[in-house]
C-alpha cells in the first residue's frame, strides 16, 4: 500500500486518479483470531491499531455490525479537549490530547486535527471561582488552561452577546489553547487503514448474535457471518454496551440516551474556535464547510432511537440564542441523534470484565470522540497485558461497588444528569 504524500497524488494524477488502492481490504472472516474486537467505530479500530502496533498482536479481527464509523464516530460534534479535573480523568485525557497532536503523522492520514482552542464561558462569580479552581487543578497536573476576562474574549471572539443586559452576562471564560476539532470520519478511516496495513482483518456487516462459552470463559462469537474464536474478546460498542453485554450475561452501570447534534446552513467564517456556553448546555464551532456545528443536552429519557425530539431541540436553541442572538435568523440544515452510553458517574469503563476472556470499553457518555486515541491505546494495553495501564486503572467496572466513582459533574448515580 502506497504512503499518502504529495508525490503520490501527483503520480496518481498521471493515470487520472483511477488506480488508488483501497484503503483497507474486505477479508473473509477466519475461524480463529488472537483477539476479536466487537465494534468498528473509532475506539474499536484504534484498539486494533494499537494492539498491532504497540503490542505486536496482529491476528486481530474488528467486527462491525454496519459500516465503519457509522455509529457515534460519525455523529459527534468533533470537539477534542483535555480539561478534565478529577483524578483518573486528567492523565487519561491529556494522554489522548498528546496522541491527537501527532495522529495525522502517525497514521499517514489527515484527520484534520485543528487546535483552534476552546472556551468555557462563566456567567456569575460562583462559576468564575469554579473555573479558576478547575484551571488551577489542570495546571498543577501539567495541562495548560487559562482564565480570560470578557474583554479579552470579546477581542478574540466577537459576535457573542457581551452586553450587561444579556440574559446571562458573560464574565469571562476558561480557555484551553490546545483543544480543537478533528474530522471524525477520517479518524475511523485512518485507524482502519493503519490497522489493516498491520494485518488486522476489518469485517463489516458482521453482527455478533451470541457468545460462545466454555464453562465460565468466553471463547468466541457467533455472528451472521459465521463463528469466530479468540482467546480474548473486547467490546467497544458504546451506545449499545448494555445490549451486547447482556448477551454475555452482564448488567452494566449504564443507561442508553439519545443526544442530538445540529448543523446550520453554511456561513462565511465567523468562529475560528470552539465555544461552550456556561449558563446552560450549548456548544458551537464552525466546520470547514462553513456550517455551525451545535449541540446541547441529551433528551433525558432512555432511548435507542437514533433521532431526537423537538422539545430538546427548542431547549438547545433557547440556550444558543441567549448566547448568540443572531442564531435565531439561521436555518438548521441537518439534525441527528446518537445513542450515548450514560454511565452512573459520567466516566468511562475500560477494564477486564468479570468473565474470563471478555474485556469492556464502555460508558463514554457524550465525551467519547476526544478520547478515541487514548481509549484504543489503553484498551489495547489492557487486553494485551491483562492489566490496566496507569491511565485507565481507575476506569474499573467495580469502582461503583467499591465506592470509587469518578464523578466529574458531581451528579451522583443519575445517568441523565451527567
Amino acid at each position: 500500500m502506497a504512503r499518502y504524500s504529495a508525490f503520490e497524488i501527483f503520480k496518481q494524477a498521471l493515470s487520472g486518479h483511477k488506480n488508488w488502492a483501497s484503503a483497507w481490504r474486505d477479508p473473509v472472516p477466519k475461524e480463529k483470531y488472537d483477539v476479536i474486537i466487537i465494534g468498528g467505530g473509532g475506539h474499536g479500530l484504534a484498539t486494533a491499531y494499537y494492539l498491532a502496533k504497540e503490542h505486536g498482536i496482529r491476528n486481530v479481527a474488528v467486527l462491525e455490525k454496519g459500516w465503519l464509523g457509522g455509529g457515534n464516530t460519525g455523529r459527534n460534534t468533533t470537539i477534542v479537549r483535555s480539561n478534565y479535573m478529577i483524578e483518573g480523568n486528567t492523565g487519561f485525557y491529556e494522554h489522548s490530547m498528546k496522541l491527537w497532536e501527532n495522529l495525522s503523522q502517525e497514521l499517514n492520514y489527515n484527520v484534520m486535527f485543528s487546535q483552534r482552542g476552546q472556551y468555557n464561558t462563566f456567567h456569575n462569580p460562583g462559576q468564575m471561582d469554579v473555573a479558576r479552581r478547575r484551571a488551577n487543578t489542570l495546571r498543577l497536573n501539567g495541562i495548560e488552561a487559562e482564565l480570560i476576562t470578557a474583554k479579552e474574549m470579546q477581542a478574540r471572539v466577537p459576535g457573542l452577546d457581551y452586553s450587561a443586559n444579556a440574559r446571562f452576562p458573560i464574565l469571562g471564560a476558561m480557555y484551553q489553547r490546545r483543544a480543537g476539532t478533528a474530522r471524525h470520519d477520517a479518524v475511523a478511516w485512518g485507524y482502519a487503514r493503519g490497522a489493516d496495513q498491520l494485518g488486522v482483518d476489518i469485517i463489516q456487516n458482521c453482527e455478533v448474535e451470541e457468545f460462545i462459552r466454555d464453562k465460565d470463559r468466553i471463547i468466541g462469537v457467533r455472528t451472521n457471518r459465521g463463528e469466530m474464536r479468540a482467546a480474548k474478546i473486547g467490546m467497544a460498542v458504546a451506545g449499545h454496551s448494555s445490549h451486547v453485554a447482556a448477551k454475555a450475561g452482564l448488567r452494566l452501570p449504564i443507561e442508553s440516551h439519545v443526544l442530538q447534534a445540529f448543523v446550520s446552513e453554511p456561513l462565511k467564517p465567523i468562529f475560528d474556535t470552539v465555544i461552550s456556553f456556561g449558563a446552560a448546555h450549548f456548544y458551537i464551532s464552525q466546520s470547514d464547510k462553513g456550517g455551525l456545528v451545535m449541540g446541547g443536552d441529551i433528551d433525558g429519557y432512555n432511548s435507542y432511537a437514533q433521532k431526537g425530539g423537538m422539545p430538546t431541540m427548542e431547549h438547545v436553541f433557547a440556550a444558543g440564542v441567549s448566547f448568540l442572538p443572531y442564531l435565531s435568523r439561521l436555518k438548521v440544515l441537518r439534525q441527528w441523534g446518537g445513542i450515548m452510553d450514560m454511565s452512573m458517574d459520567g466516566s468511562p469503563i475500560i477494564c477486564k470484565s468479570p468473565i474470563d476472556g471478555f474485556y469492556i470499553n464502555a460508558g463514554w457518555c457524550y465525551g467519547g470522540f476526544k478520547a478515541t486515541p487514548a481509549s484504543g491505546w489503553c484498551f489495547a494495553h489492557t487486553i494485551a497485558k491483562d492489566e490496566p495501564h496507569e491511565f485507565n486503572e481507575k476506569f474499573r467496572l467495580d469502582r461503583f461497588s467499591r465506592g470509587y466513582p469518578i464523578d466529574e459533574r458531581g451528579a451522583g448515580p443519575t445517568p441523565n444528569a451527567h
Partner: protein
Amino acid sequence: MLRIDCPFCGLRDETEFVYGGDASRKRPDLQETSQDVWNDHVFLRDNPKGPHLEYWFHQHGCRSWLKVQRDVATHEITDVRFADKEKGQG
C-alpha cells in the same frame, strides 16, 4: 415529542412531565446489608433495547407519578397507569 396518556388528565405532551427512570427496579429492604444487593439497585440497569417500564411525573398536570411502558427503540407507548394505585386516583 412523546405524548403520554395520563389516566387522570388525558393525552398530554412530554414537556408536562419529568422523567423518573427505570420503574422495574425494586428498592431492597432497608434492613438489607449486602453490598452487592445495594450495588445492583443503585448502579446497575437492564437498559433493554425494547419495551421499558419507566416512571414519569406529571409535574404540570395532576402531579401523579405514572408507570409507563415504552419501547425505547421506537418510542411506542403501550401502557400508562398510576404508579400507586391507591393514591394515584387523585
